[in-house]
């Protein structure tokens, strides 16, 4: 389907076009939200908020060819706003130790329900260990496939910094995976590390 025409119809208020756009992009938005907040329920709520924000600002997307970049920039801003509010919000109450243990044994984590592949789970766990900027570079470049120039614009950093950080971020992620004890040959399902560098 022609993305330019689809976007124009959405801007004109065509509900069917908007539904197609939501179905087309919901996986991406959920992946971005999950990458930033690391919790399935929170990411789903946040992803809905992102779509509402997106809908209100559809008319500000001038270049339909760059729709995905524009979408990612809106999603990223919403995620950062959410994290900022979450950081500023004081904890409601302390959870007693006995409740903590019952929470811990309460079955599979949300992450396990959403992310099916064991390797993807591992990568998400390792992403939590990275510094903020390296995590964003992995999310935007390696996962979402944004060009380096656009990442530099989004993060407001020089292109050279992004280039040099990009390789280091991947190495840091690989190290975090190895440190989690799940590197090659260490996978809990016995599948990790079966491949070698080609």
């Amino acid at each position: 389907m022609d993305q330019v025409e689809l976007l124009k119809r959405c801007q004109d208020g065509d509900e069917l076009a908007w539904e197609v756009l939501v179905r087309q992009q919901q996986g991406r938005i959920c992946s971005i939200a999950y990458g930033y907040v690391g919790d399935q329920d929170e990411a789903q709520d946040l992803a809905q908020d992102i779509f509402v924000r997106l809908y209100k600002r559809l008319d500000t997307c001038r270049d339909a060819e760059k729709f995905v970049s524009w979408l990612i920039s809106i999603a990223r801003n919403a995620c950062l706003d959410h994290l900022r509010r979450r950081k500023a919000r004081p904890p409601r109450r302390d959870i007693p130790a006995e409740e903590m243990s019952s929470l811990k044994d309460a079955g599979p984590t949300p992450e396990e329900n959403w992310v099916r592949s064991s390797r993807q789970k591992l990568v998400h766990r390792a992403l939590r260990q990275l510094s903020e900027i390296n995590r964003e570079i992995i999310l935007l470049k390696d996962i979402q496939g944004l060009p380096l120039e656009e990442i530099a614009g989004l993060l407001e950093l020089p292109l050279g910094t992004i280039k040099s950080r990009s390789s280091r971020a991947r190495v840091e992620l690989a190290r975090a995976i190895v440190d989690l004890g799940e590197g090659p040959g260490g996978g809990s399902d016995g599948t990790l590390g079966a491949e070698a560098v080609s």
Partner: protein
Amino acid sequence: MSGGRKSNRAPNGENNRRHDEKFIQDVLSRTSGSPCERAAGLLPALTDDALEDMDRRLVQAHLEHCPGCRTLAVTLGWLDPLLPKMAFLDPGPEFTQKVLSRTSLAAPGLSAGPVTEPTAFGPAGVMDRLGRWWQRQILRPVFPMQVAYAATVVIVLLVATPVSPFRQAPGRLLQTVQAGPESLPIVGSLLDSTTHGTSIWVQGQVDYVSQTIRDETTGAWRGAESDLTARMERTNSERGSMKSHLGDLVRNLKGGNLGDAGYDLHRVLKSGRRAWALWWNSESIAESNLESTIERRTP
């Protein structure tokens, strides 16, 4: 006996290999230092097949003898094709409906159930169609911009067209503003009447004005106080972030981690800029300003 020799040779060979390895490590530690960092820096290019031939052979030679870097290389090998596959997560079938119920014409109350075409004829049918058309128009995202554009055109036509009865309106308005409110006939007559009033009436007016000034001053003071409190509250989060990033910056500077320190400095400045914007504008204005800045920077 020969079997005994064989069983002794293997451990000796292993010992020799370990000895050689230890020797090499000792030499490297006393000369260039460990090459692992350099190898790790080149590993992404190796997995991308973007290394020059010589570099590739050097890294591969290092990998043969360094299990740590080999583990890292294998991890990068399966990581690279996996990451792009993580760009989409399936949120389940209900997600789309939740989003649609919060946006567009599918929102409950706006169009519950399937859309039915108006069946009435005559004026009722026309009004029905007109109502539906208007509802669709005002719910379009682009509608506010179109209204603003149309309003601008109407105002320009009204005040700039030679035959328009409102052509002199801006000039008159400007004159009135410059001359003060007493230039208006009704206000002028009221002001004149005060000069002919009795002394009691004048005294009453003076008291009234003094009381009004006192009330206004108190009100203004309270307003300023609450405004200051509101500004402090809405910048609280950003000032907190700025302080936190500043702490990270100092820590990274002390630890000599200049790369992360540079990023922390960037975050400090960013939080500061946002706090400044929030201080002078309401949150929504500040947010839209920042986002428009970001969108401008996106090519």
